[in-house]
């Protein structure tokens, strides 16, 4: 690990000013991804500004029914919150599907959004990776790419975003609240993460020095009928091969409202706008669900080792919609 200065922030604006002023400074939250990257040599900050003790640990109900989640709320506390469990069960389930009990006690809401891909080539500093070292090449495109993207990838990068929580937030139309030198701005979570394009080293639209202070969930009645399904190589404590977050409201046998996002398929949580459009107003039948899943996966471009993800994503979505229709979570 390279040497670094450590400072503990007592004020969010001051922390933003400190990191903004130093190109090689970073914020430290729970540390579960950053400290590992520092040890692996992927991150070599000269200044670490610890924001984990800032007063950003509250989950607040806002007027009108929205919920504001502080950036420093631990994943375990968010998953166990009574409002989240009853009004946004898909978010509780997604959080509980990620990592382990020990890690969820450390990991923060903001840090979860900012965690980086677990692509084995990204994490191995001895091999080329455009994300870690722009211009060096992608080892995964011709390599072991079973875990990689089938949607929205580029010739420069085929990595997938690892978060479960972010997939639920994408389905729920959450908003990321960010503090920068010019004050606060609000970013829809579906626009927060980027597709790789020609600059896979940039995973979000955050500018250097911008600090996430909160995530807001809108009042969303359909979210009460929601769930998160995750398919992985072992029953627990593994990253997703494919995951689906969905919320479904049926009225008079037709789809009145629906939200869907996929994990494990792309460089960002994949909001399934085509599937949603195909479903809105359609009869709540297996045929509608099959058609919606097929529409979303029509542009899938599997790599050598991950063609299985196409039917897996279709089947997982159809199964989840079927279960939500039957009232099973």
């Amino acid at each position, binding site marked *: *690990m390279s*040497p*670094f*200065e*450590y400072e*503990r922030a007592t004020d969010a604006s001051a922390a933003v000013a400190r990191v903004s002023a130093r190109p090689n400074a970073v914020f*430290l939250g729970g*540390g*579960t991804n950053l*400290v*590992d990257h*520092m*040890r692996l040599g992927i991150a070599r900050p000269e200044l*670490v500004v*610890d924001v*984990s003790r800032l007063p950003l640990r509250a989950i607040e109900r806002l007027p009108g029914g929205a919920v504001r989640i502080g950036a420093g709320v631990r994943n*375990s506390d968010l*998953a*166990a919150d*009574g409002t989240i*469990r009853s009004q946004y*069960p898909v978010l*509780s*389930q997604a959080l*509980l*599907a990620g*990592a*382990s*009990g*020990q*890690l969820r*006690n*450390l990991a923060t809401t903001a840090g979860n959004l900012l965690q980086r891909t677990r692509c084995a080539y990204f994490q191995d500093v001895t091999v080329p990776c455009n994300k870690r070292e722009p211009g060096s090449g992608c080892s995964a495109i011709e390599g072991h790419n079973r875990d990689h993207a089938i949607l929205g990838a580029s010739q420069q990068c085929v990595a997938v975003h690892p978060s479960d929580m972010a997939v639920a937030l994408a389905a729920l139309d959450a908003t990321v609240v960010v503090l920068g030198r010019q004050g606060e701005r609000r970013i829809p979570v579906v626009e927060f993460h980027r597709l790789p394009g020609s600059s896979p080293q940039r995973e979000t639209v955050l500018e250097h020095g911008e600090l996430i202070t909160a995530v807001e969930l809108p009042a969303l009645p359909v979210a009460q009928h929601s769930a998160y399904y995750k398919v992985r190589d072992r*029953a*627990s*404590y593994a990253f997703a091969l494919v995951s689906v977050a969905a919320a479904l409201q049926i009225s008079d046998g037709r789809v009145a409202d629906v939200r869907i996002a996929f994990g494990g398929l792309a460089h960002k949580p994949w909001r399934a706008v085509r599937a949603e459009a195909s479903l809105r107003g359609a009869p709540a039948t297996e045929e509608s669900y099959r058609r919606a899943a097929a529409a979303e996966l029509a542009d899938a471009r599997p790599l050598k080792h991950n063609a299985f993800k196409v039917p897996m994503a279709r089947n997982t979505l159809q199964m989840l919609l079927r279960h939500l229709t039957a009232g099973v*979570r």
Partner: protein
Amino acid sequence: MKASITLQVDGRQRSLSLDTRTTLLDALREHLGVKAPKKGCDHGQCGACTVLMDGRRVTTCLSLAVACDGAIVTTAEGLAPGGRLHPVQQAFLDHDALQCGYCTPGQICSTVGMLEEAKAGHPSFVTQGLSPQANLNDSEIRERMSGNLCRCGAYVNIVAAIRDAIGKGAMP
């Protein structure tokens, strides 16, 4: 870069000066000689370094010690003050819930923290309806303990030990 911190470890107040790069695990083992938490993967993947920090189970290999200044740390050793075993430790012995024993201190701290979480109403991924009153059956125990790997494969007896500890009132 050097930093000075204090930790309360297993009931004792400890002050230390260390490099900012030092993890909590290395601070405990190498600086303070507290060897109960074990270094397995050093990447947060195996759970062997689990302790209770401010009452919650955490891995110690991914936390910078300097960021833990002021924390109250309880290791598996601290769960047995004066050599009186914690009910979870006794259950692990009664059920032969180990082979080489390297993962055991982490398994035990994780179990104690997991039972506190269950008592506080935390659901798991397998809890029906995300109920705060989960029935800690074997499937719940396995899910909640999945962050602790045992390369000897003593899982069957670990689950039995935890089930027994719960039955005997170890659930706080």
